[in-house]
């Protein structure tokens, strides 16, 4: 389709035998902690628990580095490591191996997951220190990493889906980690069910694709233009019965040495689609189902899966609620890794999406809409984690703009940069929450820069990154995405080309970027500047804010405050020997902490003293992540500056085969500089207004504006009432249908059955009556008639001869008379 694209060949596979170790270590960690963690914790204390978990993470990271170094040594076209473990299942043409593969894209993901994941594990040591179910937390966290690694390393859709659902499970478990609070438990449930909507789309898209490859749907037009060797209907044996993997492989026809036909494997799929001489591409592009282009439908359905996992409109609603989980979880799962799974999936299938401009248009459009929508909600939130949650949704929207318009590497790069700066922000907020004694409401913070310098600087650095200033990484990825969006004239919607869509998305993106910069700096100024407002005695007002995490969780966390700052001093000793310098009234020993939740909340007022910097495990991790947010900028220095392709683009090129073929307009370098300037300007404008309005909490303008536009404010603050809309539009009707079905079952179907029974009984009674009165009655009637006759006749027999004689005479007389009459 693109003239400049050189003929692509099959992926050269390097078989290695150790990839399975990468997910194995977290799995072992999770298993040990899940099965015997409670006992270990009892016997040896909490150290053993986190040592197991963190060791597992670093081991996985180590193996990932080995794989990375091996990959670096290979020529770029051959960077594909594969490790097939066993045949998962075979039925007919569908054969699925349980196997792993690493290409540059998944390598990047694995490094992010194990690297940032390890850091977040370390952070959790301090953050969760006083949690009684410490073992459970680390077990879940390791389980999550295991599932996430399956997701990115799976060499086929099935293994990816294992991970896809596995991270959903881990996310559910971790969001509902403090399950005694029904609200938090419900948030977990919401996340899982909302994700299932996406999974439904994912599965439908997957099956559609699988069978489309088998030629199950006929092409739109006659096969005049198909002058190649791919004969889908005749030769693919799509329904042939193979019992073993070997038989299934034997059924697969090969065209020019490329295996074609239905497959679950990414590599085989990529090979047959990318190599044009197989004709698969033409077949897919020409097929329709229900009058819609099949490929578009496949891509959109798969994207529905991504919408669920990556929290895009309209399935984003679970992510803000997911903030009910512990903060490290929010950082790892709901910012850095799991939520980017959708972006990863679209990037992984770039060769498919690139074939359907309509699907690309939709992806980009949904991404842009989500970016601006979520950013606008972020404007007025007071809960620091909610702000970050909406900013995550918004940033995911940016990533989808990237992969949607065809700038796959830029989307992936934003994924990487976002993982760093958003993890920094979340962990920073976790540090703030720790420091403020489990306060999440920014109205009760302020002035923390004095007390928490490291947290403040790292948070500020991450704000620069997300707002897009050139001295941090966020600028490079966001700028690349928006620039590519502006230059993409190839998008379409419903099969209609829409060259205006790219520039429109650019404008929306710039507005969203300005907004992002505004609310992120708003959160920075509200939190770190001005005077500390935490002593004002507002502790009972948690519930005033409908979004603030509920009080039960606070009480949980408030206990861990003591031990986590205690951990600075007492890492090697017994727990809970906190220094008196912190001025806390209560220092419950860790062992007793388990029983101390309930009173802890009542104590809340007591430790409302000065905020304090977090323990070294926390600040160390924050610093490392902030440094990461800086150094990763070198991966994406734009070509306009150096004349060379950015390092990451070059690295990812073998995996993102469709990248080269996307027909972006080519603008001059001057124009590109201008776009970069616009990007920086957008960030600066947002920063300026945030500083104006929120620095040191001096300005009265925000309050006045809120008064002036209270209606608008309320609608936005209440998140446009989307949750309520869902309740009315989805939840209630489903329950109604369920009630109706249940009613129908017990009152109609079962009644019918009972009715059958009743009818049978009535018939039986009738039958009994007939038997009793008709059949038996007839028999009795014969007898009784005889008897009655006898009785009457008996009275004739008087025993008196004279009477008989009368009879005889009468008879004779009659005979005589008759004789006369007749004759």
């Amino acid at each position, binding site marked *: 389709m693109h003239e400049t694209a050189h003929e692509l060949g099959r992926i050269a596979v390097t078989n290695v035998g150790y990839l399975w170790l990468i997910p194995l270590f977290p799995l072992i960690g999770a298993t040990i902690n899940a099965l015997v963690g409670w006992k270990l914790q009892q016997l040896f204390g909490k150290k053993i628990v986190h040592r197991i978990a963190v060791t597992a993470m670093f081991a996985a990271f180590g193996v990932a580095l080995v794989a990375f170094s091996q990959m670096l040594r290979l020529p770029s076209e051959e960077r594909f490591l594969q490790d097939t473990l066993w045949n*998962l299942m075979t039925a007919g043409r569908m054969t699925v191996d349980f196997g792993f593969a690493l290409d540059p894209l998944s390598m990047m993901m694995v490094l992010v997951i194990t690297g940032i994941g390890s850091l977040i594990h370390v952070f959790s040591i301090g953050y969760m220190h006083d949690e009684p179910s410490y073992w459970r937390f680390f077990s879940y966290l390791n389980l999550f990493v295991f599932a996430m690694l399956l997701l990115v390393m799976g060499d086929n859709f099935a293994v990816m889906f294992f991970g896809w*659902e596995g991270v959903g499970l881990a996310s559910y478990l971790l969001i509902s980690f403090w399950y005694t609070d029904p609200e938090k438990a419900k948030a977990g449930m919401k996340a899982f069910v909302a994700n299932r909507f996406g999974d439904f789309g994912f599965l439908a898209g997957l099956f559609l694709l699988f069978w489309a490859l088998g030629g199950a749907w006929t092409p739109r037009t006659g096969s005049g233009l198909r002058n190649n060797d791919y004969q889908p209907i005749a030769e693919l044996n799509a329904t042939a019965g193979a019992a073993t993997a070997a038989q299934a492989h034997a059924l697969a026809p090969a065209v020019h040495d490329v295996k074609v036909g239905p497959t679950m494997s990414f590599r085989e799929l990529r090979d047959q689609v990318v190599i044009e001489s197989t004709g698969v591409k033409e077949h897919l592009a020409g097929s329709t189902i229900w009058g819609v282009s099949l490929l578009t439908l496949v891509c959109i359905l798969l994207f529905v899966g991504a919408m669920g996992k990556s929290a895009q409109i309209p399935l984003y609603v679970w992510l803000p609620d997911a903030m009910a989980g512990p903060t490290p979880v929010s950082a790892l799962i709901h910012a850095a890794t799991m939520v980017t799974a959708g972006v990863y999936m679209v990037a992984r299938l770039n060769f498919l999406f690139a074939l359907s401009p309509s699907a690309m248009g939709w992806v980009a459009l949904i991404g842009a809409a989500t970016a601006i929508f979520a950013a606008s909600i972020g404007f007025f939130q007071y809960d620091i984690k909610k702000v970050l949650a909406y900013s995550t949704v918004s940033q995911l929207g940016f990533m989808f703009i990237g992969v949607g318009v065809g700038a796959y590497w830029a989307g992936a790069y934003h994924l990487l940069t976002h993982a760093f700066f958003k993890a920094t922000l979340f962990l920073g907020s976790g540090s703030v929450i720790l420091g403020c004694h489990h306060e999440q409401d920014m109205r009760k913070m302020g002035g923390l820069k004095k007390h928490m310098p490291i947290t403040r600087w790292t948070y500020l650095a991450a704000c620069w990154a997300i707002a897009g200033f050139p001295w941090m990484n966020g600028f490079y990825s966001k700028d690349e995405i928006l620039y590519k969006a502006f230059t993409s004239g190839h998008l379409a919607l419903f099969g209609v080309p829409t060259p205006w869509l790219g520039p429109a998305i650019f404008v929306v993106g710039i507005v969203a970027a300005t907004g992002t910069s505004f609310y992120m700096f708003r959160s920075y100024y509200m939190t770190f500047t001005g005077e500390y407002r935490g002593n004002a005695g507002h502790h009972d007002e948690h519930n005033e804010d409908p979004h603030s995490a509920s009080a039960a969780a606070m009480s949980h966390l408030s206990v861990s405050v003591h031990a986590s700052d205690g951990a600075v001093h007492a890492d090697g000793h017994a727990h809970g020997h906190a220094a008196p310098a912190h001025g806390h009234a209560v220092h419950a020993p860790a062992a007793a902490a388990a029983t101390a939740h309930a009173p802890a909340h009542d104590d809340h007022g007591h430790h409302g003293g000065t905020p304090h910097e977090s323990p070294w495990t926390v600040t160390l991790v924050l610093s490392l992540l902030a440094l990461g947010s800086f150094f990763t900028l070198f991966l994406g220095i734009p070509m306009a500056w150096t004349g060379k392709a950015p390092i990451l683009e070059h690295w990812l090129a073998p995996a993102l085969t469709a990248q080269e073929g996307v027909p972006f307009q080519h603008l001059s370098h001057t124009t590109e500089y201008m776009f970069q300037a616009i990007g920086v300007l957008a960030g600066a404008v947002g920063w300026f207004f945030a500083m104006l309005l929120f620095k040191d909490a001096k300005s009265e303008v925000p309050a006045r504006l809120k008064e002036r536009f209270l209606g608008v404010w309320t609608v936005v603050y209440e998140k446009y009432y989307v949750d309520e809309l869902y309740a009315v539009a989805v939840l209630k009707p489903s329950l109604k249908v369920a009630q109706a079905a249940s009613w129908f079952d017990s009152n109609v179907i079962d009644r019918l059955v009972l009715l059958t029974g009743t009818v049978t009984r009535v018939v039986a009674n009738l039958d009994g009556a007939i038997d009793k009165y008709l059949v038996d009655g007839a028999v009795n009637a014969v007898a009784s008639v005889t008897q009655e006759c006898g009785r009457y006749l008996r009275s004739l027999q008087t025993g008196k001869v004279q009477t008989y004689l009368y009879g005889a005479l009468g008879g004779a007389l009659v005979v005589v008379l008759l004789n006369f009459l007749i004759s």
Partner: protein
Amino acid sequence: MFTPGNVLSWATFFPVIGSALIVVLLAAKFFLRLDKKLVDDGSRWIALVTSALSFAAAIAAWRMYDPSATGVQLVQHFTWIRAFNIEFYFGVDGISISMVLLSGLISFIATIASMPWWSGKKDAEMAGMVDDGHDDPHHPKHFSVRMVPGYMAMLLLLQTGMMGTFVALDMFLFYVFWEIMLLPMYFLIGIWGGPRKEYAAIKFFLYTLAGSVLMLLAIIGIYYNSAPAQLADGSWSSGHTFNLIELAKQGAAGQFRNAAPILGFSFAKIVFIGLFIGFAIKIPMFPFHTWLPDAHVEAPTPISVILAGVLLKMGIYGILRFNYGILPDATAWAAGAIAVFGVINIIYAAFVCLAQKDLKKLIAYSSVSHMGFSLLGMAAMTPQGISGAVLNLFTHGIISPMLFLIVGVIYDRAHHREIEKFGGLAQELPEYSAIMGLAFFASLGLPGLAGFISEFTVFSGAFPVFTTYTIISATSVILTAAYYLWAIHRMFLGKLNPVYKGYPDLNWRERMALYPLAVICIYLGFYPQAILGVINPALHALIQNIKPL
């Protein structure tokens, strides 16, 4: 001890031997005035040992079965009633071998679950498992200490009936075992069941008998339209045959295509419908499913386990063996309707689940929903569809017993099953909550656990044939997640209801029943080929008869 020639007989008849031994024991009690406790314990151990031996024989059969060879294996075949061409014919092929293994396993698990073992006396009293001689009608004793020898004898007889149904390859023999299974079930529900046990038992019995009648008529119809076949001793049968394998060959060759019509309708179609309804009641398929919730709710836990784990599978097994095997033309004709019923089962029952307040009813309806997958998969007649359908029988046969055991655990403690009345149990019963979470997630189709693979295979198999139906059915992944998670939410999460403080967590008997199933569940989640590789060849051959490729 086990040879290919006798292993299936051992698997089938070990339990009935145990049953006979218990009767002998009862006679000995009468004549020798043995102690009641001795007799009770004796019958328990007889039941355990014989069902364990039956399970061992089933495992041996699984290991002896050679998936690469075609046709029937482990055959035991001789003439039984010469005058009517009835033979004693045991054997397995890819359709039944997995069911033999499942039946042996679930029977053994159910026997374990029938034991009144409990670690402490106080806890045992809580469950009503202490046999102190007098039975208060207001607080009935646990089923495991009431009329123990009778219970065990019935349970063993039931096991023989189930195993025999799966291995019998003679229509008459099949019918005999099918009916043998019915009677003990009636008594087990009717005597050892819950408050409305009589109603449930009668409903179950009449419902299944109604199915049996249709089936019997169809069997006789098939018999009188069959051609003679060779008997076990090499001679030819007189006129007709009951041999299922021969009948399948004749059916594939079109023997029943031109049989005389009944009341103006095609013979094959009428017989197909008769057989299908007979089996559909067992599945149970909408709208013949309403006996199931009642039977489950009233049945004691091990009986629910057997009911959900094995009995429901017989419906699908029977359809595959009879309808698909003998009447391929009519099957092709009915495939669309089967798929529609499958979809209704899946979606309708899932919605009904969402509205249930009784935990056991919820799980009973979820069984109805999950059996719909098998219907949909086998209707599609693709290799994936049919393999998925049979795999679904196996995985559901692992998961649903877990679910019912889990309900039994909480019922033994709380003596009710109202989901709304629980709350926060995860704090008091962490191990129980974990295993229940595992079972629920397995049932809602989480990858890595057994349920997912069968759903995935069924969907992928049904998709090209019934695209719309499959997409509708796939919405069940959302509904299933919703009702299970909501149940977890209401029962385990949130604040602990103080009523349940101090409840004991799982005891060893419950662990012995639950953990093996959990391990199998995870194993199959990651290696379903263990089952698929064995059942694939025979199943794919089966559908090739129906739709020549």
